[in-house]
């Protein structure tokens, strides 16, 4: 783990008394390698280690008795700060019904997370409503329907429609008749390089005017996380991020990259395939995971 590596790197140096700038720089190489192996983006790592270097070469670290511990603490604190505040509770309030779009790349976990979010909101005594707006993937609507039935949440989809905007607006009017207070729209997976699919999303946003667009990203995503975050945020505009499959042992550096590139809050963490395996974001948990 990074903390073990740093302990090792600095234990060789403690015997020398004061640390030189070169000593800190060589130990920071360990930090760089560990962050890259944790899938943090290359450029983000460069900026991050520069910041750490400025703080580590500061007076109090160089004169401390356990420089390794000090640097680890600086790295950890810097990561936690970068990741943004923790989420104590989900705030989807204001307009009624509150409309959420789940967007992202193919297979990232949008449909599953839509079901999980509806379940979580229901447990908070909200009245969620699901809309299946993926008209492309075979049996996408059936998949969401099975989830909706499982948690007894109302759902709308139209297997015969090829008009996503119609499906969503019709779903909203039905949700209103149902007195639902939160509407979750599950959209089709799409590549940010695919202009026609990005246009579909841009047009859907224009006509429906959602209150929150959640970018759903696979927790195992590598360097491409910055491209995903940047393109979806610039072309469509996102409000927050959900990271899935974090019950795996991928270190999750993509979370850092997403936060850094979009500046948006990481709100939700998918921790399994079951409908109740959705957690709220805790930066210190993610930071210690990345540090190993």
């Amino acid at each position: 783990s990074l903390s073990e590596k740093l302990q090792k790197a600095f234990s060789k140096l403690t015997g020398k008394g004061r640390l030189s700038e070169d000593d800190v720089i060589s130990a920071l190489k360990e930090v760089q390698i560990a962050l890259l192996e944790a899938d943090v983006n290359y450029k983000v790592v460069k900026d991050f280690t520069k910041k750490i270097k400025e703080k580590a070469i500061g007076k109090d670290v160089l004169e401390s008795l356990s420089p390794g511990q000090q640097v680890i603490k600086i790295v950890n604190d810097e990561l936690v700060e970068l990741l943004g505040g923790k989420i104590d509770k989900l705030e989807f309030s204001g307009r009624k019904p509150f409309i959420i779009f789940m967007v992202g790349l193919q297979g990232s976990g949008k449909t599953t997370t839509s079901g999980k979010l509806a379940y979580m909101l229901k447990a908070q005594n909200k009245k969620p409503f699901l809309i299946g707006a993926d008209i492309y993937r075979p049996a996408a609507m059936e998949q969401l329907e099975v989830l909706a039935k499982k948690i007894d949440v109302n759902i709308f989809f139209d297997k015969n429609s090829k008009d996503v905007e119609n499906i969503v607006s019709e779903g909203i009017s039905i949700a209103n008749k149902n007195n639902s207070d939160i509407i979750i729209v599950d959209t089709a997976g799409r590549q940010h390089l695919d202009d026609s699919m990005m246009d579909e999303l841009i047009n859907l946003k224009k006509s429906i005017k959602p209150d929150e667009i959640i970018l759903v990203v696979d927790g195992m995503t590598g360097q491409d996380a910055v491209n995903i975050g940047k393109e979806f945020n610039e072309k469509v505009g996102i409000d927050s991020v959900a990271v899935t499959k974090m019950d795996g042992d991928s270190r999750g550096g993509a979370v850092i990259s997403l936060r850094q590139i979009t500046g948006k809050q990481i709100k939700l963490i998918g921790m399994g395939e079951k409908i109740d395996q959705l957690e709220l974001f805790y930066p210190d948990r993610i930071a210690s995971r990345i540090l190993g």
Partner: protein
Amino acid sequence: NDLFYDNLEEILVTSDIGIKTSMELVRTLKEVVKKDKIKETQKAIEKLRELIVDIVKINNQKLNISKDELSIYLFIGVNGVGKTTTIAKVGNLLQKRGLKVMFSAGDTFRAGAIEQLKVWGKSLEIPVISQQEGSDPAAVIFDSIEAAKARDIDVLLIDTAGRLHNKKNLMEEMKKINKVIQREDGKKPEEIFLVIDSGTGQNALASAEEFIKNVPDITGLILTKLDGTAKGGMAIPLIKELNIPIKFVCLGEGVKDIDEFIPEKFIEGILG
């Protein structure tokens, strides 16, 4: 010149090749450049291309098909990588070659998984053997092999549920599925494909190692979603370490969006 190598390292790392493999490649390139007294950057990049081609070019890239018996292709991999969609693509390819194909709906767990494969089967006119959602995957697979033999099928493609490599019970289930196939068919599956999402980062290596530990007869990798900005670079340390060939690459959601793996094309996607 240091800048040249730094930029190269950045290109390699940002394609998910991994920092250790990237540093190794740059180190080797520096030695080759020195030894061969290379002066132009174009030549140096050509050398780098060759180094990478040497890693990913493995000889057994052909599709294994039994002459007079049923061939079984098993598809395994992490959640959401594209297994089910790839089965449709490979099934379509084989059918176009005149082979009789059948699908086995071995994912009995995920919502809508059986239905998803059935929709593909219907559109390709390929029969799908399935049971109820929640049934034992081994039972479905057993049924499928029986049905494939009875109907004189050439290739049976078996879909399985997505699974993370750190889930012990799911790794055990996958082992059991492999055993059932070998027992029922009397031989190892002709192909066991580990399907990998090109956007996966460094976890791909630990994941593949664990899959192989539990299913040592994996015969090929399939890299999906190469139609985006992800470069699939983690395939390089993967192939170097595990010596398993990439048999297909997938470039889209349509049934035709599948190609044989061409090392030069793959590397061009990384180096430009």
